[in-house]
């Protein structure tokens, strides 16, 4: 399956693993890349030297292209931006802001810059600033989210820019991938599905919570603070939502979630930790290797598109089949 994104990133399949904080380390990213997609190490709030050692570790596992997701609100962002340029990776995705000030530095290091956007205007400004591609991420995704859904945001971003667009948020299998391609995406980014990859080093409790999740387990906390976060409901989210209803202070809310993602990912405390996951958690049923996940998604996407081609015909070919 060839698209402008597979050519741009020199990868086999247009499948990207999102750079999830705490979850997306060298082991996960490198194995996604090894399997023909491209993995992104999540720099999140980590210090620059952690990012450097993860990039090096990933390169020991595979010589395929690797990316880093740079979280622009991190206090270490300047150093992380520098380390990424020094170490050299294929691509950088950016979250939580405007990466314009690092654009020149990264492009000089021949890194493809792919901002994650949550609006059409932002996509247009990023393209003008030199972005090589855009990730349009809808609010079905896990973690920090915007307001628009993938279904509405993705085609609007596709219409607004001429660089290739990657669809993200709410994509968990080949049907979702096919739908994103229909909306004009040239690759998909998945996060939640890769949390439960065999190569993913998150706590078993975290994986089990994602695998056991039902559709309605997905909740959004923090709307009142202006920084909404999607996760799977648990003791912590129930307390948080109750506190939000009672208008407790921002500081108290912050206190409840301080270090809570680490608590879930590393310590396996899925009651009081933040179990970030997207809305598609409900459709994830088992652990698989990165290669199995990618093969299955791409194969299913192709089959879905073929199956749907019948809708392009004026008369239904096989009446019996649709009776």
């Amino acid at each position, binding site marked *: 399956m060839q698209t402008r994104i597979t050519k741009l990133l020199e990868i086999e399949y247009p499948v990207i693993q999102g750079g999830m904080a705490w979850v997306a380390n060298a082991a996960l990213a490198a194995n996604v890349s090894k399997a023909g997609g491209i993995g992104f190490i999540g720099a999140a709030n980590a210090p620059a030297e952690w990012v450097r050692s993860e990039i090096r570790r990933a390169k020991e596992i595979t010589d395929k292209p690797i990316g880093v997701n740079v979280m622009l609100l991190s206090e270490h962002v300047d150093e992380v931006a520098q380390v990424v340029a020094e170490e050299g990776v294929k691509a950088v995705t950016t979250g939580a802001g*405007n990466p314009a000030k690092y654009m020149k530095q990264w492009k000089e290091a021949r890194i493809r810059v792919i901002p994650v956007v949550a*609006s059409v*205007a*932002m996509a247009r*400004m990023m393209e*003008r*600033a030199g972005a090589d591609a855009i990730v349009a991420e809808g609010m079905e995704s896990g973690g920090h989210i915007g307001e628009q859904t993938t279904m509405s945001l993705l085609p609007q971003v596709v219409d607004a820019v001429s660089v290739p667009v990657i669809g993200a948020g709410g994509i968990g299998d080949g049907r979702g991938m096919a739908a994103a391609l229909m909306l004009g995406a040239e690759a998909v980014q998945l996060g939640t599905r890769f949390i439960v990859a065999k190569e993913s080093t998150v706590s078993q409790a975290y994986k089990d919570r994602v695998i056991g999740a039902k559709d309605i387990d997905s909740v959004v906390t923090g709307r009142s603070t202006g920084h909404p976060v999607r996760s799977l409901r648990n003791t912590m989210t129930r307390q948080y939502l109750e506190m939000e209803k009672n208008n407790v202070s921002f500081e108290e809310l912050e206190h409840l979630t301080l270090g809570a993602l680490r608590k879930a990912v590393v310590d396996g405390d899925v009651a009081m930790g933040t179990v970030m996951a997207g809305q598609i958690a409900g459709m994830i049923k088992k652990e698989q290797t990165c290669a199995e996940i990618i093969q299955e998604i791409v194969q299913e996407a192709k089959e879905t598109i073929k199956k749907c081609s019948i809708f392009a015909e004026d008369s239904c070919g096989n009446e019996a089949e649709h009776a």
Partner: protein
Amino acid sequence: MLEKMKEIIAGQLNVNAEDVKPESRFKEDLNADSLDLFELVMALEDEYSVEIPSEELEKLLTVQDVCDYLKNHGVEA
């Protein structure tokens, strides 16, 4: 220019034009988030046929900052 700009800002940010003052800070006083600022810059660019690069965005904190930027880039005041 300020009158016309006030109108654009008020329209983009859904606030009353009389609340838009030169010293108004976009985030704190006019409740604009980062996505609002992208929209606003786009609208200003269309109106004044000028390009505001995205790396300038974080320097534009108040209405006056935007006025100054436009003036310095040849937009008639």
